């Protein structure tokens, strides 16, 4: 494979992986192969969507995160918690309580990510209305979608809105605020609680940026456990009065499906979630099939961020809790109990000035070669090989489909002999021995699988 351009947070633990191939068959970009009995990832095709993580039966797919202890490398430790973090807990643990617990388990400050959502949506709306030529403009909020477009829909990279995510706005805000208060810059550590792998990958190698706005990323499930434990052995009374007061009712739902769309308020926009739905839709957008579209909110996960692979609890329930909280906030705003004008608005100009990301470049995984004549040769080869394959997508060759095997063969990453049907044919013609075909299968699926079946079962 070509050199790798992405940092990936999704990794495979070889000790746990037993080569069941579920991940391979479920990967929307055909980025996984089985080799030597283990799943392996073609890094340039992986978009960190997490579909593999969801189906792995052995916990072999994992999400690499920063060590929690690394927060103590900083004197001032800020945690950025997205609204869905609070939505994981049942209503009896309200947002203010969770907020207090966060500042009790090691952090000196806590702030909700969606605090900046309103400013973010204003910058985005301005961008949309002044960039008619690239319609429909596509949200860059979900990093798996940005990567999907880079690798699979390179013609649409110019449609991506080159604006940072709310997490970056909020991080910039809190950093500046602390510096203004006299905290030395090097003492400030900002940590983001992520619901998914894509957000980690985006922070470690931000697209169109050279430096990330946060200092570390913590997985939502890990943080859920820490907070939950604290709540359970509640040795002390937490004050549950209004501590969490960073977000407005319309912003708290930003990361749910339709949240950004509503806030941006374009004439014609769609909110589409779940990676396969998004791929289908982008296929149409690429052909100019859908007319007069202004804006697309696209999310890799069903229900948006509540469906992230690292959230704890059912995505519909989390969604409902966040919606309920939005409703309560709206009531309070109406009664004047809380103001819609939050502290962050004082820094609006600064945040707007620092809101842009650099150019997002296409990174097509579709192309067979940089050089068109080489690509043409490979394509010719694929078209020669494909009809020879049984077209049943059995995956025994270690590739997700017959077509994927044909591509792998043309790119010298596999052999026609990897196909069991071809092996049977050759054995039948006495051109291959049983031992040879067993060796091929062992190469793909590992030694043990065949030994077990023959000797022990």
């Amino acid at each position, binding site marked *: 494979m070509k050199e790798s351009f992405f940092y990936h947070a999704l990794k495979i633990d070889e000790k746990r992986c037993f080569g069941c191939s579920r991940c391979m068959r479920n990967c929307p970009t055909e980025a996984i192969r089985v080799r030597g009995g283990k799943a392996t990832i073609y890094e340039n095709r992986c978009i960190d969507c997490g579909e593999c993580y969801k189906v792995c039966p052995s916990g072999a797919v994992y999400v690499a995160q920063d060590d929690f202890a690394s927060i103590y490398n900083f004197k001032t430790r800020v945690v950025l918690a997205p609204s869905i973090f609070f939505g994981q807990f049942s209503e009896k643990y309200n947002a203010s309580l969770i907020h207090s617990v966060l500042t009790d388990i090691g952090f000196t400050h806590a702030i909700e990510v969606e605090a900046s959502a309103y400013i973010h949506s204003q910058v985005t709306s301005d961008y949309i209305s002044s960039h008619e030529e690239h319609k429909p403009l596509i949200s860059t909020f979900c990093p798996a979608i940005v990567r999907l477009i880079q690798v699979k829909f*390179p*013609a649409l990279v110019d449609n991506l809105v080159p604006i940072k995510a709310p997490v970056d706005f909020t991080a910039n805000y809190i950093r500046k605020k602390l510096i203004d208060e006299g905290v030395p810059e090097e003492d400030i550590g900002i940590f983001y609680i992520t619901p998914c792998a894509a957000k980690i990958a985006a922070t470690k190698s931000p697209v169109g940026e050279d430096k990330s706005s946060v200092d570390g990323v913590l997985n939502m499930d890990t943080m859920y456990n820490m907070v939950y434990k604290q709540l359970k052995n509640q040795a002390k009374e937490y004050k549950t009065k209004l501590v969490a007061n960073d977000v407005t009712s319309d912003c708290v739902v930003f990361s749910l499906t339709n949240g950004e769309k509503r806030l941006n308020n374009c004439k014609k926009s769609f909110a589409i979630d779940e990676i396969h739905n998004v791929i289908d839709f982008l*296929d149409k957008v*690429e*052909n*100019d*099939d859908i007319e007069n579209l202004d804006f697309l909110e696209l999310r890799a996960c069903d229900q948006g961020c509540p469906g992230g692979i690292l959230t704890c609890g059912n995505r519909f329930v989390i969604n409902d809790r966040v919606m309920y909280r939005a409703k309560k906030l709206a009531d309070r705003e109406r009664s004047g109990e809380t103001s819609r004008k939050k502290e962050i608005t004082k820094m609006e100009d600064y945040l707007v000035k620092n809101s842009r990301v650099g150019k997002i470049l*296409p990174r*097509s995984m*579709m*192309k*067979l*070669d*940089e*050089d*068109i*004549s080489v*690509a*043409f040769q*490979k*394509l*010719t080869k694929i*078209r020669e090989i494909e009809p020879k394959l049984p077209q049943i997508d059995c995956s025994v060759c270690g590739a997700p489909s017959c077509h994927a095997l044909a591509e792998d063969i043309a790119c010298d990453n596999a052999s026609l002999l990897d196909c069991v049907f071809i092996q049977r044919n050759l054995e039948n013609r006495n051109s291959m021995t049983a031992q040879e075909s067993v060796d091929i299968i062992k190469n793909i699926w590992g030694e043990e699988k065949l030994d077990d079946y023959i000797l022990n079962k």
Partner: protein
Amino acid sequence: MHFEYNIIESDFANAGKASSEIKKTMKQLNIDAQKIKRMVVAVYEAEVNAIAHAFGGTIFVDIDSEKICVLIKDSGPGIENIELAMQKGYSTASAKVREMGFGAGMGLPNIKNNVDDLDIKSEVGVGTEIKMVVNFI
């Protein structure tokens, strides 16, 4: 490299299958995104014409490392006056076709704008052949 696709009469729902396939192939060849888009839009328009104005037909695609050539052939009613048909806004689309959102008379002009070479042969009562080329270099 050669492919063929059938176009079925009145099957608007499945228009675009051929252009999707063409798109994928061009992506694999690392063709410039704008060129892909141009060809896809042109093929789609011509395909819809064969569905709407003729009785379906066949799409022939030929690709080499220099260009893509798409020929769309139908044995429909033919076009009486090609020059007139090429004009923006000219359309003989039926009410039924208009109801489906087609029939603005923009298809052929749009094809012309998008391809590098366009050749239309048509004979009344026999059929129409539209040949479109996009050069890679």
